[in-house]
């Protein structure tokens, strides 16, 4: 069996049918995430080997309610299912995933797929949950009525996909005969439900009913949302600390060990000051970034995120957007790149454009290292009212400043827009406990992306920064710090006349340059600039006291304000170009962010100076 070409299988289903959990369960870590040729829709594919030894390629198609596509990702699903997608061979088998808890909605789309007349099997997912609804499903009957294999599954439970694997080992099912053209699929769903679904017990109050009374409540719901976001930011700062200390110490002793092995000279300086110190200052922030991702993933998987969109829809509407923009914008807190990519679910082109433009104002995790460094150096770790960490409050304020600015920018951008309708039409899925396996796979993928960035762009730039700040070497008998004579020093001094109005010194100017490539590099760049300047190999923890000694409070606030708007990193600009196909938008967003950053830093610097005297 193993020499057969792999079976190509496509998972298709409604949003919230639990397709991704099944995909993760089936393929584990053997996944590859890329884009479909020609469009920017995420293509998730994975491999598996069935118990009988058959190789299977699984494609996780974007969730959709219907084959009448209204967005690019729905169009991909439609075309792949029909077997007409260019560059994507027609799948050998469609696996239609249906949530057993939501048959009325999901069976309709399954019937639409069945109308294609291609080989398919139906997976009744979340079969464990329907007992709680007091229902039973007559699976053999449903299978007989549909004429295609029907298997049950529990996507979030380990071993919950055995039946799917068995069905993949079975001989290929014969394609179903489509219903006559023009059949009312809703009526057919009702017929199937009447035949195959029976109520066994009195219906008990759904968990959703009870919880939604609180979560969607105008007052309590807002409070819950606020508390969740607030805990999220506090957690990022306090829970991550022990892990950060561990990584910090680890990188430092690595630097010491390697430094001891190498002879004193340029090579040792390159390895210890350039590579290890550069990578170290950023790797230290991995725990914070993972905690943030974990929160967003858990909120997403639990079904809370669309409810947050419901609560915030009117607020988003005041900025001319819809609650749908909330999810891309929230993802942008982790990184603007996936955030901008997830704007594809926004059907209205103008809404989508505005969301893309303001996504970089959401404080991405790459800015956290900068915030963390400056807050740690300048804001005392004091508790206010015995409850709130002052550092956490400042961080919260910085996030809030970004959000408020985004609302203002969106309003300005939408002012000239025609009054066309922006659909919301958002499903509020059932609450689920996030599956640990699914969470850890998704989290691992995020961590891998972050680390590969550290490994490539950031270390490369750190080395470049090290070179810029080490060469040319100071002339013999020089009195000032070495970096003053280097290329970096000269560039920094050239930039200084423009940036001194907002309180930046030349070291900051130097660090801003690599910060364009990836924001978090600014920290390691500062470390390089200062560690070389102080002729001392060190990492982030030594940077903080150094900065608090050398910078004024006004300068620190000015740099913090700068990073709220942070002229974007190149990857964000690249993704904007890719998603919109427009250089104009790239230039507009670069220019407006730069302008806002300069203005905000100017205000922050001068107001702080006035207040602190």
């Amino acid at each position, binding site marked *: 069996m193993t020499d057969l070409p792999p079976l190509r299988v496509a998972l298709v289903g409604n949003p919230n049918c639990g397709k991704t959990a099944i995909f993760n369960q089936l393929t584990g870590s053997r996944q590859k995430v890329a884009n479909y040729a020609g469009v920017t829709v995420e293509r998730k594919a994975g491999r598996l080997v069935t118990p009988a030894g058959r190789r299977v390629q699984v494609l996780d198609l974007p969730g959709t*309610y*219907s084959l*009448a596509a*209204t967005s690019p990702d729905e169009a991909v699903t439609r075309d792949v299912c029909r077997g007409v997608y260019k560059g994507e061979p027609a799948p050998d088998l469609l696996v239609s995933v249906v949530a057993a*808890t*939501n*048959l*009325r*909605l999901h069976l*309709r*789309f399954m019937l639409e797929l069945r109308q294609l007349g291609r080989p398919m099997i139906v997976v009744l997912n979340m079969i464990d949950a329907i007992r709680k*609804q007091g229902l039973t499903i007559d699976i053999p009957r449903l299978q007989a009525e549909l004429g295609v294999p029907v298997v049950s599954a529990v996507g979030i439970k380990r071993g919950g996909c055995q039946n799917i694997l068995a069905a993949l080992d079975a001989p290929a099912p014969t394609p179903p005969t489509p219903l006559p053209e023009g059949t009312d699929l*809703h*009526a057919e769903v*009702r*017929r199937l*439900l*009447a035949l195959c*679904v029976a*109520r066994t017990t*009195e*219906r008990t*109050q759904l968990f*959703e*009913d009870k919880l*939604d*009374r609180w979560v*969607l*409540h*105008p*007052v309590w*719901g*807002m409070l819950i949302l606020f508390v969740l976001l607030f805990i999220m930011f506090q957690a990022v700062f306090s829970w991550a600390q022990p892990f950060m200390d561990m990584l910090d110490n680890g990188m430092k002793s690595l630097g010491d060990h390697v430094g001891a092995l190498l002879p004193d000279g340029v090579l040792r300086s390159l390895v210890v000051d350039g590579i290890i110190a550069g990578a170290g200052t950023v790797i230290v922030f991995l725990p914070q970034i993972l905690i943030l991702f974990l929160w967003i993933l858990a909120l997403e998987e639990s079904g809370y995120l*669309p409810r947050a*969109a*419901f*609560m915030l*829809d*009117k*607020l988003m*509407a005041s900025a001319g957007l*819809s*609650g749908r923009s909330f999810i891309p914008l929230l993802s942008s807190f982790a990184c603007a790149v996936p955030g901008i990519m997830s704007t594809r679910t926004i*059907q209205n082109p103008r809404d989508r454009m505005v969301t893309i433009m303001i996504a970089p104002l959401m404080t991405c995790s790459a800015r956290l290292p900068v915030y963390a460094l400056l807050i740690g150096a300048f804001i005392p770790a004091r508790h206010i009212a015995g409850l709130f960490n002052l550092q956490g409050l400042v961080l919260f304020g910085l996030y809030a400043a970004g959000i408020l600015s985004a609302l203002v920018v969106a309003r300005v951008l939408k002012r000239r827009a025609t009054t066309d*309708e*922006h*659909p*919301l*039409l*958002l*499903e*509020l*899925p*059932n609450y689920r406990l996030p599956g640990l396996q699914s969470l850890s796979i998704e989290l691992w993928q995020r961590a891998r992306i972050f680390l590969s960035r550290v490994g490539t762009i950031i270390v490369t730039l750190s080395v470049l920064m090290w070179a810029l700040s080490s060469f040319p070497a100071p002339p013999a008998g020089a009195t000032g710090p070495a970096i003053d004579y280097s290329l970096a020093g000269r560039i920094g001094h050239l930039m200084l006349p423009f940036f001194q109005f907002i309180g930046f010194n030349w070291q900051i100017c130097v660090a801003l340059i690599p910060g364009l490539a990836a924001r978090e590099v600014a920290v390691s760049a500062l470390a390089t600039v200062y560690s070389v300047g102080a002729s001392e190999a060190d990492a982030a923890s030594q940077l903080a006291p150094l900065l608090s000694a050398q910078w004024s409070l006004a300068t620190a606030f000015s740099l913090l304000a700068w990073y709220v708007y942070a002229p974007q990193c190149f990857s964000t600009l690249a993704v904007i170009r890719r998603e919109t196909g427009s250089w104009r938008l790239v230039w507009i967003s670069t220019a407006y962010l730069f302008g806002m950053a300069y203005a905000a830093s100017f205000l922050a610097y001068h107001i702080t100076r006035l207040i602190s005297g």
Partner: protein
Amino acid sequence: MRLNQLSLRAAGVIDHIEALSTHDAIAQRLGELGFVPGEPVKVIAFGPLGGDPMAVEIGFTRFALRRSEAHRIVLRDNTAATAPSCAAQPHEQADPAASSPSASTADSSSHQAPVAGPLA
């Protein structure tokens, strides 16, 4: 009566979807989401600011709709809604599957009506 005119926790039965134009994508999508004639719907929440959007329950699914979207959903008037198998009186309603599964709408509501049932 339209869906956007219902008050909190009130229920109704969909009569039809009114498309605002010949290519009303929102009206079409509403149909695909299961907002079809004969389905009982219930309002479960209103947004915190100005009562917009609204959250409605249809079957086991909940959707957030803007009021302008809900405006497209026309409900049956009360005379039609008082027919025995419909969910116009959701309070203390027994499972209609036990009574008379005669028409096809009754069959569907044997699955649907309990959703709109004892929570109000």
